[in-house]
């Protein structure tokens, strides 16, 4: 089967990999040297590496505050997603009147991109008095439909005999969910955590709309504000950029498989 030589494949993939990694390299190099912000031609290899742009970025903006805001919102979103989605996913494994209608509603909601609802969503959030607040940032992301279906699929795969055994022993339903189902749904939990984290972490449009106070900005919003103030005139922008990217990249690399599984199974569903 493998009569053809391998090296062209490697060559092509290496070429593509270089192209994919080049932007990362370039921003990292600029953040560490800053040498070619004004100078032409740019040097391809880093010269005069120093970390001072990171120091500048750290003090030019309330970085710790932005980071904390992002982490807090992400934490709220993750916890809410776990609770809401596990509960809803478990409910959907049962037979009950109106299930078809619920599934229909969920699937139609999936066809409504959040971007198509921003104006009333903003007005509703204002009515609730949640502008400029953590809860306001997190609330729309409290449940993702894809993640509900991921939980449902995982629960469906648990052998029914286990649940029936628990039921015959007289274990109440909510305890079955907590003690029997959830420990067996670890893959779904991992997927839920990572997907809701990444989505919350990267979210930009919603914070841009509802946050007016600098102290409440999340990382992406902070980055765009920084860009608006300083344009491309300083290496600190790229240092900030790297600092914003690293946490997401780290989480992704740690949980790559869960992330990819979640995305592909979720994408398959919608």
């Amino acid at each position, binding site marked *: 089967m493998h009569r053809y030589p391998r090296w062209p494949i490697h060559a092509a993939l290496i070429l593509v990999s270089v192209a994919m990694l080049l932007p990362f390299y370039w921003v990292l190099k600029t953040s560490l040297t800053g040498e070619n912000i004004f100078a032409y031609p740019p040097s391809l290899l880093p010269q005069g590496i120093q970390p*001072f742009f990171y*120091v*500048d970025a750290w*003090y*030019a903006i309330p970085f710790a505050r932005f980071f904390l805001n992002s982490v807090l919102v992400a934490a709220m979103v993750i916890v809410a997603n776990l609770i809401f989605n596990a509960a809803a996913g478990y409910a959907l494994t049962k037979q009950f009147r109106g299930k078809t209608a619920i599934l229909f509603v969920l699937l139609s909601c999936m066809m409504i991109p959040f971007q198509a609802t921003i104006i009333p969503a903003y007005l509703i959030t204002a009515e609730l008095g949640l502008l400029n607040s953590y809860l306001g940032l997190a609330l729309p992301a409290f449940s993702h439909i894809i993640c509900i279906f991921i939980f449902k699929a995982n629960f469906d795969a648990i052998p029914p005999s286990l649940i029936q055994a628990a039921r015959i022993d007289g274990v109440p339903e909510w305890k079955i969910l907590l003690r029997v189902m959830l420990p067996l749904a670890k893959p779904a939990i991992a997927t839920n955590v990572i997907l809701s984290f990444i989505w919350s972490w990267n979210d930009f449009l919603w914070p841009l709309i509802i946050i007016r106070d600098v102290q409440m900005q999340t990382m992406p919003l902070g980055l765009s504000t920084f860009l608006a103030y*300083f344009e491309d005139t*300083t290496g*600190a922008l790229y240092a900030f950029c790297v600092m914003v990217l690293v946490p997401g990249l780290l989480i992704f690399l*740690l949980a790559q498989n869960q992330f990819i599984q979640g995305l592909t199974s979720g994408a398959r569903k919608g």
Partner: protein
Amino acid sequence: MRPWLVNRVTITFATIALVVLLWNLYVAQHDDGILAGTVTGPDGSPVPGAKVVLSERTIVSLDPIAETVTDDQGNFRFTGHDRHRVVLTASKPGVGQSRRLEVRLYFRNQNRELAEPLQLAP
């Protein structure tokens, strides 16, 4: 059997926490904002009584924030400057002025002994 805490996620985050902790300990030990150095004349000998100005370099501007005068050995010393990017200039009437010396610190108030003297030139 491995304890459940030993996996790459906990190890990664524990390492990060440890590094942050050590860094903060280091910062706490070295944040008196002492910035010390010497001023020399064109011939390389120490200059007493020279005025040294400490300015802050922000991304957009340069603002003087403190000044001091060198002692008999030509040494000067600032404390508690609370900046991370400063510019030093020294001058003495009759002797001359120094170049602007930019000092970049790893964190605000970092202690730093300057190895290079500020050399005055007419």
